[in-house]
């Protein structure tokens, strides 16, 4: 465990998280939207079309942190940050997955354009991250190699 994580856990040890695990279905159902066209797309091109991000411009201001080699494709940690001023949304796509779009994050006033998640990757592929900023779309990619381990039995 990293020093950082240990400190993190110690610091948060005092926090008694009040768990309010309840059903608030009607409220959420009303608020929720889910982009069927983009998430149902089987190719990156169709997913980008669904997102309205076809002409995204490459940008080094999008930072993708992911391992170069993943020991297992079932869990690939990905951390995305946009340093583009006025970033309102980011999307994470896994190029060779059956459905490439993994997630889209809308950041409202008060949130930083940052997200960390674990994604599944069927095979070695590029991660493609889109950012929306100032009415334009930007893109960055990073390859993650996925390997086979174990006895396979």
């Amino acid at each position, binding site marked *: 465990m990293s020093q950082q994580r240990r400190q993190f856990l110690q610091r948060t040890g005092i926090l008694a998280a009040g768990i309010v*695990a309840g059903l608030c279905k009607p409220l959420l159902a009303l608020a929720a939207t889910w982009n069927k066209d983009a998430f149902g797309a089987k190719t990156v091109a169709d997913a980008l079309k669904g997102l309205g991000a076809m002409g995204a411009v490459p940008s080094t201001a999008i930072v993708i942190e992911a391992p170069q080699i993943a020991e297992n494709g079932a869990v690939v940690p990905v951390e995305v940050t946009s340093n583009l001023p006025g970033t309102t949304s980011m999307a994470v796509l896994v190029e060779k997955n059956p459905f490439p779009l993994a997630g889209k994050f809308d950041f*409202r006033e*008060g949130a930083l354009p940052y997200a960390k998640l674990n994604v599944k990757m069927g095979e070695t592929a590029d991660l493609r991250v889109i950012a929306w900023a100032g009415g334009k779309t930007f893109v960055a990619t990073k390859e993650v190699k996925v390997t086979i381990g174990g006895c396979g039995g």
Partner: protein
Amino acid sequence: MAAGPMRMRATQGAGFTDVRVLMTHPMETGQRKDADGKIVPLHFIQNVTVKLNGKVVVEAETSQAVSRNPVFSFRIKGGAKGDKIEVSWLDNKGESTSIESAVA
């Protein structure tokens, strides 16, 4: 863990509050076969919402490509000790869960 606990930790970082949330969910792709060779139906979280003191700050749409038992981190500008953070999820079957805690 088909149904189980949810966990959240909101901690102050350098100029932001780090919100780490763990969810118990199978995130089925609809392509996996169970022990009897039957396809396990598609079952995954579609929406994740983060609220700060009741106001929405992050709205996420997700797919079955997110790993089982999802773990997300988000960052909220500023954030003071005691601020209320609420995270909720909604899946494709209409099930949902939420968790609330204060910034530590």
